[in-house]
């Protein structure tokens, strides 16, 4: 095998191989959270930060002057429009609704506010975040999992969707490079961690400085040689971590150490949001996505062995079929076993309270424990049991939510033909709903 072939196969394995995109779906949430945590506080002080009354500074290193002039000329109305654009695109990106488009809009709004005033949000960390955002917008892979996009697509098992691995690999390289080059700059190119004792100086900084008032700080401030050793250890760790993350045998240990390192940084220093919210998830991108898929499948098998909950639905109703299809996508761990009640001749054998009329009027959920619920109450139970619906659980369990929810459910059940856009409906007897008995 020649060097060209070796390189080609290495390149393919590193960037082009199709692997599950589940990690990017999860990472999308971390990115959205980090962007929100970084940007939203600055939007609460619009007069101080972005409107005509604000004190603004510009990042001439990052932005070309014409862009800065253009942005600076924007009246307050445009600024407010970007606030809305940012809020909506962040929300859409978080739930994975048109993930790529919403990601691009969110990134553009971040750029706009950064160009408008870099005083509060503009840090080195924000530059790193923008690099991450750019990679997250290059493809729509981050919307494959845990997203409205996956529900819209309607394909089962979105966690197993295979995609070229390059986005995840480039994010891994970004993190590795951040650590490695930070260590390198500490010992070369103006860094003074070998020739001086910066960690010791940090411990001696005044209260207004970047170091938090943590318990051992005063003691460390009395031990310069220990601080020097700690500083060197940190540099060695930063040099070693990227390699430890890429080597499968050392990866678990490196992940634990890397995340602990970030937490330690955050506990001892006033480091920006990104250190706590973005770097640990970036490290988790080193976990092979196949391992996540295998873990999900093990959970599915365990649920199958324990006995699944039965979801009885009307298989002659297109709306119900579509809803069940989406529930299957949301049911990540295979807790549910959807069953067309028409295919079950003896419903009473499953549960004495089950009748064809009841099953036709609302979906019924029969849990392995024997607990039976129907309609909105069944949905409320699902938000407790299906991990991907758990975000809705607080809302559906609010006081009064059940009262409203049951009425909305009944309305949907009665009018499901109006909501239903499945062309197959014409032939699948969903006209039964017109009798008033059918429901999703």
């Amino acid at each position, binding site marked *: 095998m020649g060097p060209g072939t070796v390189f080609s196969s290495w390149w393919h394995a590193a960037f*082009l191989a199709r692997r599950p995109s589940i990690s990017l779906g999860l990472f999308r949430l971390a990115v959205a959270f980090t962007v929100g945590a970084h940007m939203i506080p600055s939007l609460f002080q619009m007069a101080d930060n972005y409107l005509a009354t604000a004190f*603004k500074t510009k990042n001439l*290193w990052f932005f070309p002057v014409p862009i800065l002039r253009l942005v600076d000329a924007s009246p307050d109305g445009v600024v407010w429009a970007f606030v809305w654009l940012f809020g909506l695109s962040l929300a859409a990106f978080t739930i994975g609704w048109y993930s790529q488009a919403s990601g691009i809009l969110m990134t553009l709004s971040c750029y706009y506010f950064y160009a408008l005033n870099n005083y509060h949000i503009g840090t080195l960390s924000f530059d790193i975040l923008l690099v991450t955002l750019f990679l997250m917008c290059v493809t729509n892979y981050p919307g494959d999992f845990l997203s409205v996009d996956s529900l819209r697509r309607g394909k089962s098992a979105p966690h197993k969707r295979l995609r070229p691995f390059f986005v995840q690999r480039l994010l891994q390289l970004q993190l590795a490079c951040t650590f490695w080059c*930070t260590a390198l700059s500490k010992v070369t190119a103006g860094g003074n961690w070998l020739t001086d004792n910066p960690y010791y*100086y940090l411990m001696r900084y005044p209260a207004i400085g970047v170091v938090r008032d943590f318990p051992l700080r005063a003691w460390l401030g009395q031990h310069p040689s220990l601080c020097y050793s700690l500083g060197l250890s940190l540099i060695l760790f930063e040099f070693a971590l990227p390699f430890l993350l890429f080597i499968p045998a050392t990866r678990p240990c490196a992940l634990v150490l890397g995340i602990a390192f970030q937490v330690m940084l955050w506990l001892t220093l006033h480091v920006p949001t990104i250190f706590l919210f973005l770097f640990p998830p970036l490290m988790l991108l080193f976990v092979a996505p196949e391992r996540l898929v295998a873990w999900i499948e093990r959970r599915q098998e365990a649920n199958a062995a324990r006995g699944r909950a039965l979801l009885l639905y009307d298989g002659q109703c297109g709306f119900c079929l579509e809803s069940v299809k989406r529930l299957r996508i949301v049911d990540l761990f295979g807790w549910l076993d959807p069953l067309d009640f028409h295919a079950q001749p003896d419903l009473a054998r499953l549960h004495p309270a089950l009748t064809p009329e009841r099953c036709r009027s609302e979906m019924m959920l029969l849990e392995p424990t024997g607990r039976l619920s129907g309609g909105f109450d069944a949905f409320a139970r699902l938000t407790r049991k299906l991990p991907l619906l758990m975000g809705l659980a607080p809302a559906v369990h609010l006081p009064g939510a059940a009262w409203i929810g049951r009425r909305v459910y009944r309305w949907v059940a009665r009018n499901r033909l109006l909501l239903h856009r499945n062309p197959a409906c014409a032939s699948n007897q969903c006209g039964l709903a017109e009798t008033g008995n059918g429901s999703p």
Partner: protein
Amino acid sequence: MGWSIRTAYVTGQSSRCQLRRAVGIIIDSMNRRRRRLISCFVAVWLALFTYETLRASYLSPLVLRLRSARAPSDVEGLAGRPLPKLPLLFPPAGWIMFFHIDKAYGFAEVYGLRRGVEPALLDPHDIFATKAVGYDNIHRNVLVGVLDRSDAPAFCRYLKRKFPAYDEFAVVYAQYPDVVETPDRILRQIAYRCQ
């Protein structure tokens, strides 16, 4: 490809097989094109990433050294220019978190002045009230950014709006010259006044 599909359609002989083969060829060609596109993107990204990682701290000084060695008299001209930065992406100076920490610690203070009253040190949290999640921007020395004299008119306008009770303001550069040897010694110098 089109020929294969048409032939399969017209002749009807083992059409399913031919159609499958034609579709396979189309998909294969699309995949090849996609792989090529991805490879190009990755190569360009890695090149830019490496360039921006090394540019400020390593490449620019190296190029400057080489240029000045070649044309020692033109250091202020073309030879003195650093390498260009890619706009809109990547940190301006590479990945340099906490790379140089000095014994000295400089910071900014803002005093509110009223006639006949002692100058009052303004709490920096009142000057910039934006609260970041999980850390305090004031502790990251965000206020030091107002010391630049070119920003003085804008900052003075800002202070007058935020603190109308004061007649004037003094923006002061303060410095601990040595946090180890003289941890309590602070040097202060007025950077500018807002009148």
